[in-house]
């Protein structure tokens, strides 16, 4: 049967099990939208292409299934750029489809032409420009294969209008084989034995766990390993939820705004078991002082991460879940209770805490955590809101914390929350936001109202770009250069879009407001007017050793 390129795209999506996409129409994607008109794929119309990318990303992180977004050529495609870079940095499986000018007009600076495969080369795992309709079905299959296997990441497929609008016989392209792309899953046995031996010999082991735990579904294996060797588990921002935050061996997050006890444990460890992590500078601080006495085992799906930022003694490339399973099979544990006692003593001595007077953002986040029993899906924006959430919400489930870690994209949280709510329609979803970040994609109120999504947005409103202000306070003599914000009335903005808005100025109002928001079937903006100059503490100053913390 002859199908148009647009129809082939729909068929290929169905074959991949995709039932929902996020997009925004335009001239060069008209043949695709025309095919969508008759299909049973749910299309969520965001109000900005960037939001479509973030929503697809949030959907993917929450469900584990690839997120799909669609935009037109030129500005539509370039508006996806931030979303793709966000997904790339955090290894999120996503496939983005963009329209392109007809092949005959390529390279002539045509109307709404942008070289999107060139532009997105460094911020996608791979990308394709489909010049021939007969390559379309195979290319889409390859795109999903690449996005979802190995180290996940975003893949972009650029489709000229004459390809999506042309017709050809649709055939199943058969199995995907790319000779240059064969991710290694299992670790070499000799490395597994070396790791097991190092673990058995360690007196002060620490597990440093990241997003790779969540991506590979390795939380059960991680819990077994930690319990077996009585090692404290410090997670990265991306790893939160990958190990239960309420577990006795959890020391929460490490790094710049990590807990003191996590950083102390890492600093004093004699064996660092780094699992699904990439030794980001926000984690390590000054690299020479990061676990200076420790032997380092690094397990990650991406061989290029081994030795990229720090020296590694036992590099193990492979799927984190598979490799942890291999190690557990041969591990003879000899846990030393003294180490755990020391870690527990640090926990008691240096707890995460804040002064309770005034309207404190930390208290609001604790309240959200208590009321939802740590079981809601949380997205954040970027900055103080994000760090307080990481510190004060106890995440117990993988895929429950959804945040832009690597790229640090302000404006991510709200559209991501929309994607999460679409992917998890029966769950409670909160975006914990700042007054600055929320205004970077505030137009998505229209999307949330349009699709009747009961997303709750808790704006921690200090009328500042809080994290930048904090750095200005600490490192630039309180010279608050362009970080003070004159904001709109968020309640009125929400109401204008047809959502609910609640302003909260006193502690006594926090709980009733949250109850009202949770009970509401509409999107709700909660405008929490918080202490203006509250800081995120503790803090490792940039470039300092991780055991030298402020606050």
């Amino acid at each position, binding site marked *: 049967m002859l199908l148009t390129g647009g129809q082939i795209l729909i068929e290929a999506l169905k074959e991949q099990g995709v039932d929902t996409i996020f997009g925004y129409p335009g001239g060069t994607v008209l043949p695709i939208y025309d095919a969508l008109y008759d299909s049973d794929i749910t299309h969520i119309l965001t109000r900005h292409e960037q939001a479509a990318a973030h929503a697809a990303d949030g959907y993917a992180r929450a469900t584990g299934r690839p997120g799909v977004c669609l935009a037109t050529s030129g500005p539509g495609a370039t508006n996806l750029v931030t979303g793709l870079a966000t997904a790339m940095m955090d290894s999120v499986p996503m496939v983005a489809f963009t329209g392109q000018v007809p092949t005959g007009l390529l390279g002539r600076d045509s109307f709404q032409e942008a070289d999107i495969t*060139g532009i997105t080369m460094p911020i996608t795992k791979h990308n394709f420009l489909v010049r021939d309709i007969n390559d379309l079905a195979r290319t889409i299959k390859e795109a999903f294969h690449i996005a979802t296997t190995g180290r996940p990441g975003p893949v972009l497929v650029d489709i000229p209008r004459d390809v999506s609008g042309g017709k050809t016989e649709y055939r199943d392209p058969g199995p995907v084989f790319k*000779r*240059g792309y064969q991710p290694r899953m299992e670790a070499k046995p000799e490395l597994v034995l070396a790791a097991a031996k190092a673990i058995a010999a360690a007196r002060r082991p620490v597990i440093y766990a990241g997003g790779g735990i969540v991506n590979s579904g390795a939380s059960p294996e991680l819990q077994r390993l930690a319990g077996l060797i009585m090692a404290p588990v410090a997670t990265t921002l991306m790893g939160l939820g990958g190990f239960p935050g309420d577990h006795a061996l959890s020391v929460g997050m490490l790094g710049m705004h990590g807990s003191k006890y996590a950083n102390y444990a890492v600093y004093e460890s004699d064996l660092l078991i780094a699992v699904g992590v990439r030794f980001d500078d926000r984690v390590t601080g000054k690299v020479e002082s990061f676990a200076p006495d420790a032997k380092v085992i690094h397990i990650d799906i991406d061989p290029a991460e081994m030795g990229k930022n720090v020296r590694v003694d036992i590099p193990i490339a492979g799927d984190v879940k598979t490799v942890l399973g291999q190690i557990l099979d041969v591990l003879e544990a000899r846990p030393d209770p003294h180490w755990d006692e020391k870690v527990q003593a640090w926990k008691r001595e240096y707890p995460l805490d804040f002064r309770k007077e005034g309207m404190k953002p930390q208290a609001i986040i604790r309240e959200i955590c208590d009321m939802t029993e740590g079981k809601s899906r949380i997205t954040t924006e970027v900055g103080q809101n994000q760090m307080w959430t990481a510190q004060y919400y106890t995440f117990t489930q993988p895929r429950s914390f959804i945040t832009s870690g690597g790229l640090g994209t302000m404006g991510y949280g709200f559209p991501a929350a929309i994607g999460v709510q679409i992917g998890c329609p029966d769950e409670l979803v909160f975006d914990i936001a700042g007054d600055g970040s929320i205004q970077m994609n505030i137009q998505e109120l229209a999307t949330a109202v349009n699709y009747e999504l009961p997303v709750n947005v808790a704006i921690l409103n200090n009328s500042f770009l809080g994290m930048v202000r904090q750095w200005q306070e600490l490192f630039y003599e309180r010279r608050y250069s362009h970080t003070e914000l004159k904001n709109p009335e968020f309640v009125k903005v929400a109401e204008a879009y047809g959502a609910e808005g609640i302003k909260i100025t006193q502690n006594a109002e926090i709980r009733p407001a949250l109850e009202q928001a949770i009970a509401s079937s509409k999107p709700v903006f909660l405008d929490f007017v918080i202490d203006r100059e509250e800081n995120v503490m503790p803090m490792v100053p940039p470039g300092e050793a991780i055991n030298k913390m402020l606050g």
Partner: protein
Amino acid sequence: MGNTLTVLVENNPGVLARVAGMFSRRGYNIDSLSVSTTDDPRISRMTIIVQGDEAVLQQVTRQLRKLVDVIKVQDITRDPHVDRELSLIKVTADTTVRGEIMQIVEIFRARIVDVSQDSLIIEVTGDEGKVNAIEEALKPFGIREMVRTGTIALLRGSVTAAEYEED
């Protein structure tokens, strides 16, 4: 002294940009890069000369392997291999000095491929050192312009790049 990488890639549009872009954005220095198709039209072969210590080389190799269009990467610096550059050199040469230049050409086993009233074009192949040496020897006569290819290299013996074991 640079390290010699042999890279087999899918002959797809944009593959050179992917490789070159990776080098530039990660801050690795390419001394020379040459690329052409192989006996298999679906595969292109790059020879890349790159500066750096062992850690840098390891990263370069792994980042290259991470590219979907890259099929095989081998660092053949320490393996016995043959490497060659080709250079064309246009030298000022009136009749009074031609004899002298032809002697140099002979010593380097180069060839004269064009002659005009007052100039010669000399073609030379060899490793980097040889091409540098003839350039130096010809300088006193006046080099009007020259062009030089990047290095290309093959392993000695019967082993091919496609068969080479990756670590």
